[in-house]
Structure formats: C-alpha cells, structure tokens
C-alpha cells in the first residue's frame, strides 16, 4: 500500500482483523493479459477555475490489485476514473500506466459506466464485437471471442438481443463483456451496480470478483456503497469533497473468494463501520454546506448507516 501526500495518515483500522495480504485460491491460471499498475501523481483537475474537481491527489494502484473508491457525490471519483481512462487530461501532475504517462484513451484501459452505455442500435453480440472491429480483428475471430465472453457473463443465449430487451443487470453484464473484449490491463468501473436492485447487485459483485480472480486484471471500482467496497476491494480509498481528494486508504484483509456467510459478515460489518466513521466528518461538512440555514448536527453527528450508502443520514 502506498500513502501519498494528500492521504491523512491515521492508525490502521480494525486491529482485530488479520493484516495478512488477501489470499487468492491456488491452482487457477490467470487468463489473458494480466493487470498493469495505474497511478496519479500530484494530480489536480478543474473543469473551470472555480470548479476544482480534484486537488493534488496521489493514488497508486498495484498491478492486479482491486481498489474501490468510496466517497460522497462530488468527491471526484468519476474524475479520477476518467483521468485513468485518458478521457480527461490532468491540469497538473501526472497520470501513469505501468509508470508511463497516459496520453489518451486506450483499449488497454476499459471502462464500465453506471448506465452500461451499450449501443442501442447493435445487438449484444455486435456490441461486444465493436471494440474488436475497431482494432481490425477478422470477423470469424470476433464471433468466437464474443461468444466466449458472453458465455463468461452468462448471456450467450441473448447474443442476438438488443439492449432494450435486457434487464439492467443483464445490460451491465453485457457492458462488462464488452469491456473485457480487448483484454484490457486495467478495468475501470464507475458505480456499475448503483442502479440495480440489491439481489442483482450481490450476484454481480460475486461475478466481478470471480472475473478478477480468473483474469488478475487491475480493477478500480467506484461505489457509494461502503459494504460493496468491503465486499470487493483489496484496498478501499476514501474520498473527501470540496475539493475532491483522497482522505485515507484502508486495506481489506479478508480472504478470497469473499463469502457472504455469517462469520465473514461480522468482519465485513466491522470494516464497513470503520469506513463509514472515516467519512462521517465529510458527510457532515456537506450537510452543513447544503443546508440553507445554520445547521446543527443532530445528536452530535450525522448518522451514517454503515450497511447502506454514504450520506443516508443527510
């Protein structure tokens, strides 16, 4: 774990939690290209002079690491993802992939958006093949690859369906298949499951972890949901707002694959409570700024439900 300039250094959380690195099940061969490291070095980004999205933020994601960015709205999570994708260029600082500056978008860094962003005029299969077609992959090879990917996300039966014929969860799986088509080194996911119901969300979390273990790609995953972050991440990065910045980083020392049973649930809960406490001040700060009169925290602090989303107490 790396802690950079902007990270508030505090004592590690959860002393009772084992601090060994996360375990990976042995005997599985990673498929495709393995992950690359990705980092921000002292990066600032402003949309306008009075609209600072993130300020001198540093963040390092190891190759093959699963990092979750958690924070309230406006803390610059999407901005960081777009910088890593190469869709935005930093106003100051450097954005790197495997130590080399990122000059623009690249198929080596794939993005999954909250609304899936599948092309409505293409079938699911054509959507998955689109990035391959861009790379000039021959038709037969594209078909084979898309079939394999759709099987991986359990959607092979729906290859000929258009996106509007699929449920939200299926569209999101389709978007993941499309993102994996070019065999990227880094997978960037911006609140991919935020619009899904709790059960679908849980199933997809399991699938993302399975893909992570099978492919060993680097994953940067943005979420509002503290529990989702603990369920998925090797390390959680807490973000603060105004300006957007990294508050602190919390390694999650739970073995993989993560279970949803009772024993692990208590530890997940402990982590989630710690994370929620870590951003309580931040949520309070926003609540104060957004209230139109002098705002007093009820009972000395905003209630943050550690099992739910941030800011549910606002």
């Amino acid at each position, binding site marked *: 774990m790396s802690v950079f300039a902007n990270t508030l250094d505090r004592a590690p959380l959860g002393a009772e939690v084992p601090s060994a690195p996360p375990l990976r099940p042995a005997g599985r061969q990673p498929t495709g290209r393995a992950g690359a490291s990705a980092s921000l070095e002292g990066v600032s980004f402003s949309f306008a002079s009075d609209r600072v999205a993130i300020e001198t933020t540093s963040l390092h994601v190891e190759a093959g690491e699963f990092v979750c960015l958690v924070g309230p709205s406006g803390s610059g999570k999407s901005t960081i993802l777009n910088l890593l994708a190469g*869709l935005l260029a930093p106003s100051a600082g450097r954005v790197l992939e495997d130590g080399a500056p990122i000059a623009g*978008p690249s198929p080596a860094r794939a993005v999954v*958006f909250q609304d899936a*962003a599948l092309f409505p*005029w293409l079938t699911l299969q054509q959507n998955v093949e689109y990035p391959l077609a*861009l790379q000039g992959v021959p038709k037969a090879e594209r078909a084979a690859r898309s079939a394999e990917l759709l099987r991986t996300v359990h959607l092979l039966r729906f290859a000929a369906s258009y996106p509007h014929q699929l449920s939200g969860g299926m569209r999101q799986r389709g978007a993941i298949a499309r993102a994996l088509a*070019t065999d990227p080194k880094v997978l960037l996911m911006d609140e991919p499951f935020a619009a899904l119901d709790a059960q679908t969300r849980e199933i997809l979390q399991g699938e993302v972890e399975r893909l992570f273990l099978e492919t060993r790609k680097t994953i940067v995953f943005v979420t509002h949901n503290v529990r989702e972050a603990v369920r998925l991440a090797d390390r959680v990065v807490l973000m603060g707002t105004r300006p957007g910045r990294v508050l602190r980083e919390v390694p999650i020392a739970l073995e993989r694959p993560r279970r949803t049973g009772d024993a692990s649930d208590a530890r997940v809960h402990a982590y989630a409570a710690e994370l929620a406490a870590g951003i309580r001040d931040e949520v309070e700060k926003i609540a104060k700024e957004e209230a139109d009169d002098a705002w007093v925290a009820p009972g000395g602090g905003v209630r943050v439900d550690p099992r739910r989303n941030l800011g549910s107490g606002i």
Partner: protein
Amino acid sequence: MLLRAIVTSVLRLGLGYGVALVGGVLLGVGLARSRALKELAGPLVLGLSAVPSICWLPLAILWFGLSELAIQVVVILGAVLPIAVATESAVAQVPPQLVRAARTMGARGPRLLYGVILPAAFPGILSGAKLGWTFALRSLMAGELLFVSGGLGQLLETGRDLGDTALVLGVVVLIVALGRLSDVLLFRRFELEVSRRWGTEAAS
C-alpha cells in the same frame, strides 16, 4: 398526359430531395460538430428555415430563368433546412456516455462519427428526412402551379383553366396517394427497424 405529369413530378422530387437530403445531413452534422460553423451559419439556417420555400421562386427565376434548375432550387431550399435543423438537434442529443464509451474503446474522428454518432442520431435524422420530404413535395407543387413546366402542379392549373373540377380533385387525390406511397416505400422500413432496435413504438 397524366402519367407524364406524374413521372415529371416524381423525377423532380427524387432529384431535388436527394440533393437536399445529402446537403441537409452534412450541414446538420457540421452545425452540431463545429463551433465555428455554428456561429457562422447557425442563426442564418434557423432564420431561413422560417421562410416558406416558394418565396425563393422569384429569385430563382431571376437567376436561372424559367428553367428546370429554378424549380429544383426551390425544392432543395424547401427541404434542406428542416433536414439540417433536425440532424443538428439529433446529433447534439446523442448521449455523451455513448461517445465516451466509444472513445475508451479507441474510436476517434471519422470512425467515431460514422460508427457511433450518426447511428445514435439516426432516429432523429430519419424524422428530419421525413419532414424534409413533405416540405419538398409542397415546394414542388407550389412551384409547378406558379409556372408552366409540366408535372402534377401544372395539371392542377390546367384543371382550373378548363373549369374541370374532376381533374383538379383527381390530381389532389393523386398527390395524397403519392405522399402515402412514398412514406411506405421510403421511410416505413427504416421506422420499423428503428423501433425494433431501440424498442420504441412505431409511428403509424
């Protein structure tokens, strides 16, 4: 005489509309994608699209005489502006998320335009094209009514001169049929395809 009038009008319509369609889509895409063009020509296009196209006829006759070209100019001007305006707004309304997604997969420049922006804007461009067709038909009839040169519009004028109500009504029915037929032949299958893919209701 009737058949010849129909053929004359349809050919004129086909030629003028074809030019207007290509020009309108190009102009619309240009307006949506280029800030310079938008600033230069945007207000002009909007302003001129409010001018009934038949108002161009005197000018067209002054420049080109009582010629085929004059009437084509009126047809083209009648259709090109609504198509351009509809195309511009369809392109401007393409969800930015789709463009962003395509860019992350490496699409840039012309491939982004042809592979993503134009397909995404297709439903809006299609309704602009349909609107342009009705405008082209109206402009053509007005033009043919106003100066003798063959075609269905002139046949209407002949009917009036002869006091032949049946001929006038017959030609009106023909124009209605032409409008419906062209709808079915030209636009129907595209509309069905759009509603199949996008999952929207097909307009009848």
